[in-house]
């Protein structure tokens, strides 16, 4: 790129003000358009939140198109359904109320499981992290429990808690509990010792150290745990439903499998991931407003 120095200055300006690209380049006062500036502008635009959104949308549409093409011309709709068929089915089920009936019950299970699991994980993680000795004793035991697959626990939970909603909440809550536990526990173990000392010299008593130092430093870890475990709350509920239930997304999918209805199964998959993405972005919003100090530049 053989641009004279004034243009180089302009390039820098363009990349620090990505919005400039959106209004058709009218922002630049100079009429000069040296080679390479277009690329530079495209990159600046792509780094803007709106640009990222558009790129994501593009990638999503591309995947749908490929899926549709494969279903139509290569593999066949019987095996992999097709986006158009799935959309039509969602529309149909939504219209006759079947969809909401299933989604609402799964959402309820996942939400209760998530809240209870997160609360349990916080409490256990806080206790195990605060009392070092206890943490050391419990760590391997909890890790062993965590290694048990949810799908294998589901039949047991059904046996213990019945075929109703409780067993699904239990499976969902268990998965969340372990993830949140490990994050909170790690967070507590990782509180900066130098900071502890410094805050102690400032005159802090135990409650100050807990409220003003430990709690804020653990929050980062807690949010990480919540974000990671959120999809698992849904997965746990759906898996338990697939083992045995009379309602819910898992029931709906199991039903579809029994009828060789690939489209019904894909509807379930699309719903679970869609809900996950939506709830996840909500959680990220919450995180951004709580941990505001994180995204300052």
């Amino acid at each position, binding site marked *: 790129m053989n641009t004279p120095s004034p243009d180089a200055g302009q390039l820098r300006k363009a990349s620090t003000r990505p919005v400039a690209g959106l209004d058709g380049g009218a922002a630049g006062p100079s009429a000069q358009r040296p080679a390479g500036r277009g690329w530079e502008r495209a990159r600046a635009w792509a780094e803007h939140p709106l640009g990222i959104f558009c790129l994501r949308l593009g990638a999503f549409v591309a995947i749908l198109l490929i899926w549709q093409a494969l279903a139509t011309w290569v593999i066949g709709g019987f095996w992999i359904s097709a986006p158009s068929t799935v959309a039509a089915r969602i529309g149909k089920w939504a219209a006759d109320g079947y969809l909401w009936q299933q989604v609402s019950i799964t959402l309820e299970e996942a939400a209760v499981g998530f809240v209870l699991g997160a609360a349990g994980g916080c409490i256990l993680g806080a206790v195990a992290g605060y009392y070092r000795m206890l943490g050391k004793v419990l760590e391997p035991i909890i890790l062993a429990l965590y290694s048990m697959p949810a799908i294998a626990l589901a039949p047991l939970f059904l046996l213990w808690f019945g075929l109703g909603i409780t067993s699904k909440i239990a499976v969902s809550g268990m998965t969340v509990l372990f993830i949140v536990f490990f994050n909170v526990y790690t967070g507590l173990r990782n509180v900066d010792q130098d900071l502890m*000392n410094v805050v102690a*010299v*400032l005159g802090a008593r135990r409650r100050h150290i807990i409220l003003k130092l430990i709690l804020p430093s653990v929050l980062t870890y807690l949010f990480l745990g919540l974000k990671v475990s959120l999809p698992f709350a849904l997965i746990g509920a759906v898996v338990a439903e697939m083992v045995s239930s009379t309602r819910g997304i898992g029931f709906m999918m199991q039903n579809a499998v029994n009828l060789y209805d690939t489209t019904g199964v894909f509807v379930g998959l699309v719903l679970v991931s869609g809900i996950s993405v939506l709830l996840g972005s909500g959680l990220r919003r919450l995180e951004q407003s709580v941990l505001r*100090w994180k995204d300052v530049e």
Partner: protein
Amino acid sequence: MIRGCNADGATGGGADAELEWVDASKSFWRGGRHNEAIRSVSFSVGRGERVALTGPSGCGKTTLLNMAAGFVRPTGGFVRHAGRMVTGVNTSVGYVTQRDTVLPWRTVRRNVELALEIRGVSRRERGSRVTECLDLVGLSEFDRAYPSELSGGMLKRLLLARTLVYGPRALLLDEPFGALDAQLRLAMHAELQRIWATLGTTIVFVTHDIAEAVALADRVLVFGGAPARLVMSRVIEVPKGLDPFQMQFDPACVAVMRELWEALGPEALRRDSNLPERSPHSAQVTQ
């Protein structure tokens, strides 16, 4: 215990002592072996005195500071602050760590406010005292910024302000400017001189930089050996406020620095031959 090796007048203020290390020793077990890190070190720092602790890496200077702050309990001897034994965390000192230990989720103002908040100072008084302190270190424009937005020098100022805000009797600084570039370091030296001139607080600081020690301190203590002991206590009577360039041509400065270097040199070398895992650079004392 005998105070033999420290008999060269390492006392600063006598009866007027702010901080006193009396036969302070530290030993610990590592890998089943008993390690003696510091052996019977005694010195005292007078009120309003500025004392530099220097010596090779790992010779226990920071441990001596930590004893005064109450983070580390000496295994022998004791530390007295204003006549009282230090037994727990010493909240009448201010401690500035080597690392930038700020609370990243608090703005500059809220970081400085922390000590007052903890000490139950009323909101109104907190506000004016924090403002005063931020003015003193020149950070008033950045009071709403988060620490992640600050440069290295500004972070050091923030650490100083946070420490000064509650008016500690003595400041303990552990290599406060070690991570700064030479230019910024000079600016911070001037800053510290100015703060000292304003407040007259007792200052004990650890440094690897002989020039820094001579430029800032009233007295330099050189530590060395394994286990560490006090090698030399030297009163610095050179004009303050000279930059390193001027110091090179000030005969008094040169003489003092040579003397300190000589006190350090053989010690540093001997230490290295004892501890092969340390790189030879750890013996270097200037930046």
